[in-house]
């Protein structure tokens, strides 16, 4: 049985006086124990909202969440708030994008790590601080004893993200959700954090949902990749399959637009034309159609279904990129 099974998850934002906006549109995917799953897409495709909906962290008002999020035999969307609160931080940990704003500026790092241990493992403050020291050490923060008493503004960006990882993994959760954990960091630190995540996930057997717009992150980490566009999954494939033979024109375009060191000098970078603002509603056809090079008449005639491919993945496209056209 899957550890996490998301079924037809939809999130509709509805503000008074505004047209409802479907941020996540019937997304389904599952995560096996110990597996690393990527959710990939550009800004506004619904990947972060998906993760917040799974955690029950969306604002209480102004949105409607439907579908199922089955975790360990229970539908998280139907749990009582207090029961969900018991699971958050214990069974599911989460790491956020901006480590500075995600840590409380007026509380020492040690307390911020310790409080999750006190909450879920019933430790007293002293024992929790001792454990927090071990955790900071485990995520590679130098001189952890001193860091316990320091505040977020006193340590570097990379160390802050390491501290957040320590917090998320403190209770040895079975699932870790990382929402663009490296976006706010510079490139050398990004690599360190990814290596650390990979090590910790391998060591502890924690399943990981990696949310990112960065295909480089996916390439180094994920077993399975879900590509989101306009709130829907448009392609799902094993990592090697996806990079070797992207079938959806959007995925193909994304991979094509990654700059390469070995491309001829003076060659222009490839880009997907248009922007998300050009999207058409899924009800009228494929949201990507206005930006797509492969568009056919059927693309403007209702939502294309998500169908299994011969290679074990899923694809939502009427005119996919041929399997022979490999990415250069």
């Amino acid at each position, binding site marked *: 049985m899957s550890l996490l099974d998301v079924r037809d998850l939809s999130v509709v934002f509805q503000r008074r006086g505004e047209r409802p906006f479907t941020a996540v549109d019937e997304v389904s995917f599952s995560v096996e124990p110990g597996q690393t799953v990527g959710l990939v897409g550009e800004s506004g495709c619904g990947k972060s909202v998906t993760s917040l909906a799974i*955690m029950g*962290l969306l604002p209480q008002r102004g949105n409607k969440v439907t579908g199922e999020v089955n975790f360990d035999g229970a539908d998280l969307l139907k749990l009582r708030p207090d029961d969900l*609160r*018991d*699971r*958050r*931080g*214990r069974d599911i*940990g*989460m790491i*956020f994008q*901006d480590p500075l*704003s*995600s*840590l*409380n*500026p*007026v*509380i020492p790092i040690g307390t911020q790590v310790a*409080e*999750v241990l006190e*909450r*879920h493992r019933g430790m007293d403050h002293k024992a929790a601080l001792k454990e927090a020291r071990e955790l900071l050490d485990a995520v590679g923060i130098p001189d952890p004893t001193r860091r316990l008493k320091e*505040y977020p*503004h006193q340590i570097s960006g990379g160390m802050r993200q390491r501290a*957040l990882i320590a*917090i*998320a993994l403190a209770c040895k959760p079975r699932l870790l959700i990382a929402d663009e954990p490296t976006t706010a960091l510079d490139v050398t630190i990004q690599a360190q954090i990814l290596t650390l995540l990979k090590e910790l996930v391998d060591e502890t057997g924690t399943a990981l949902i990696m949310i990112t717009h960065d295909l480089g992150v996916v390439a180094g980490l994920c077993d399975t990749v879900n590509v989101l566009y306009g709130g829907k999954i448009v392609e799902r494939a094993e990592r090697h399959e996806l990079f070797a033979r992207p079938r959806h024109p959007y995925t193909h375009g994304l991979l094509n637009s990654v700059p390469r060191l070995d491309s001829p000098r003076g060659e222009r970078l490839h880009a997907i034309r248009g922007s998300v603002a050009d999207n058409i509603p899924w009800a009228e056809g494929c949201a990507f159609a206005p930006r797509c090079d492969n568009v056919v008449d059927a693309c403007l005639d209702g939502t294309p279904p998500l169908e299994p491919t011969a290679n074990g993945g899923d694809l939502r496209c009427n005119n996919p990129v041929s399997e022979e056209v490999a990415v250069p």
Partner: protein
Amino acid sequence: MLRVIVRRLLQLVVTLIGLSALVFIWLRNLPGGPIEALLGERATPERRALLTKALGYDQPILVQYAKFMQRLVTGDFGNSIRSGDPVTEVIGRAFPATVELAAAAMIIAIGLGVPLGYLAARHRGRLLDNLSIGGTLLGISIPIFFLGYLLKDVFTQNMHLFPPSGRISTGLDNTDITGFFVLDGLLTREFDATGDALWHLILPAITLATIPLAVIVRITRASVLDVLNEDYVRTAEAKGLRHKTIRGRHILRNGLLPVVTTIGLQTGALLSGAVLTERVYNWGGLGTLIYDSISGGRDYPVLQALILLAALVFVLVNLLVDLSYAFIDPRVRVR
């Protein structure tokens, strides 16, 4: 930290010297004055000249100021023109009354304002929030003297729940040690005196508390709304922490920073409210003293001292606020 305090205290001295000069000159240029007040309008010019000379008001203003400052260094503010008593004594009698009133008002304003503001923010857009917005608007808009007389009319004249005026019932044999009647009662174990003093204190304190209360509710609400959108509150939720922990440790600790500043400013501004409140309830504190010293013939020595005292209190309270800021927020801590 110590260096900051010393620097701020030095700034305070400079501020007070400048202010004393301004006040001194300004007061003496107001129309009317102690001579008219003491002798009446029909006094002969000879008598006026005599009194002017006796009080030293015939000398150039700079000379007068120099003499004032000279005495000030020894702690002598001169004598009240109206009563003849030393100014320090006159103010010393009235000071505890006002401090007691102001403290009670701030306890009400903070004790009700912070929880109300927090709840309004958490229930944004719902009934409680709308009620608090409407209520605070009313609280800020309603003139203090009007509210004072209204409360007095309803609760004393009609319902006889509270005494109409004064700080303590006449005929109650209370021991006066500090001048703070509530405190004195506790110190001497005369609990009936404490009870009686509190009973007198309630209406005036509520009257004086309305404006700071309204401001604190508004600021707390706005500040908590800001903090609720912060990423670290989301992190705290993602940790599965209990409501209580998230509220106290993550929301209020950050959300109260602007509130602390407001509390400082409001405490300083309380004296102006005290003038009106004390008038309505015949309280006999600094507010009453200011009123009497102006209307009862420009009691220059008393007024000068009162204005300097108000400035001193204002600056000290805000120094305290700044220091507490450094205590709450490690980012502003001085090395």
